[in-house]
């Protein structure tokens, strides 16, 4: 499953090493820690889970399987909070 940020419902800003997100529907704020903040801009640029896994594995010298699990957990949490939406992977 590929995810994209719900651009119509969230406003965000990178600040220091973190990301602050405002959910425009609920007026709730979220902060994404430094690890997640490495992934968020890539997600905003349309990266899929594989690309995020590559980034995480490279940035923290992680085994790819471990990185993939962390990315999945990160995306799952964002999805649970309604900050990202699942989309069908692009063809081709």
């Amino acid at each position, binding site marked *: 499953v590929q995810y994209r940020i719900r*651009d119509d419902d969230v*406003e965000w800003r990178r*600040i*220091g090493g973190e990301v602050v997100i405002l959910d*425009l529907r609920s007026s709730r704020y979220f902060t994404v820690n430094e690890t997640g903040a490495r992934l968020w801009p890539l997600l905003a640029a349309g990266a899929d889970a594989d690309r995020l896994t590559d980034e995480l594995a490279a940035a923290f010298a992680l085994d790819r399987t471990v990185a993939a699990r962390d990315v999945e957990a990160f995306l799952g949490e964002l999805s649970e909070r309604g900050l990202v939406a699942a989309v069908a992977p692009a063809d081709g």
Partner: protein
Amino acid sequence: MADRALVATAHALALDRTAAQVVAALRAAGIDALVLKGPILARWLYADGTPRPYDDVDLLVAPRHLGAAYRVVERIGADPVDLDDALNGAGLEPACAWRLLRERAVVEHVAGQGVLALDPVARAVHVALHAWWHGPAAPKPLEDLRRALGLLPEDGWREAALLADRLRAATGFDGGLALDPAGRELLERLGRPVPRERRATPLAEADPGVRRLAELRLRHGVRARLHLLRRVIVPVPGEMRAHYPGARRGRAQLAAAYALRSGRALAALPGVVLRSRGSA
């Protein structure tokens, strides 16, 4: 992250939502607005995560729509919103300047909505003018300028210089660039003179609206000057209520605020005229 930076960022994001709401309300009323600074500069120049706090929504509208735009802002209760119909330092008659800038508008995504903003070239002009207007003692506009100089390619600055000339804003544009060492080098490469005067001539006047009279000598032509005088001496009611909280309480208080503002402006005017003659 420091709590202060977190709070400032949360505040900025809330202002972004206000900006999007105001732009949508203006659009529904048939009024185009360009979002200046705020989220536009934060994303363009501070993508590295350096905080750039801001505390109001800055919008540019066509001069003929300024009064109506303030009425829309008041109707939806948006605050704090700073509406303007001209860039500080642009001497061209404001309606003509608006048309030039509107032609360069691009769509940016702010708080879930497409909004109009200046394109990077016009943004660069605005950033240089803003730095010049506030002078060497204001760190935020200078940092904006430093970053814009590092980000926009030289061809972009060349185009920005041409736009500044068309806006009759060369004094402020060159004066702004001259505040930064890289800007001074750029001026030389562009074949533009590095000005001696590196900031707007300040007025010793507490009221920011009246301080704007300092622009009088930069305004090109009678219409542009009359427009500025009208804006400073007799602003539209919405602007009065936005900048003088007491004026929101009723007609009598609004009239008193007008008397205060007009009085301050008229008292400052002779000095401005004398300086204009002195520098002409």
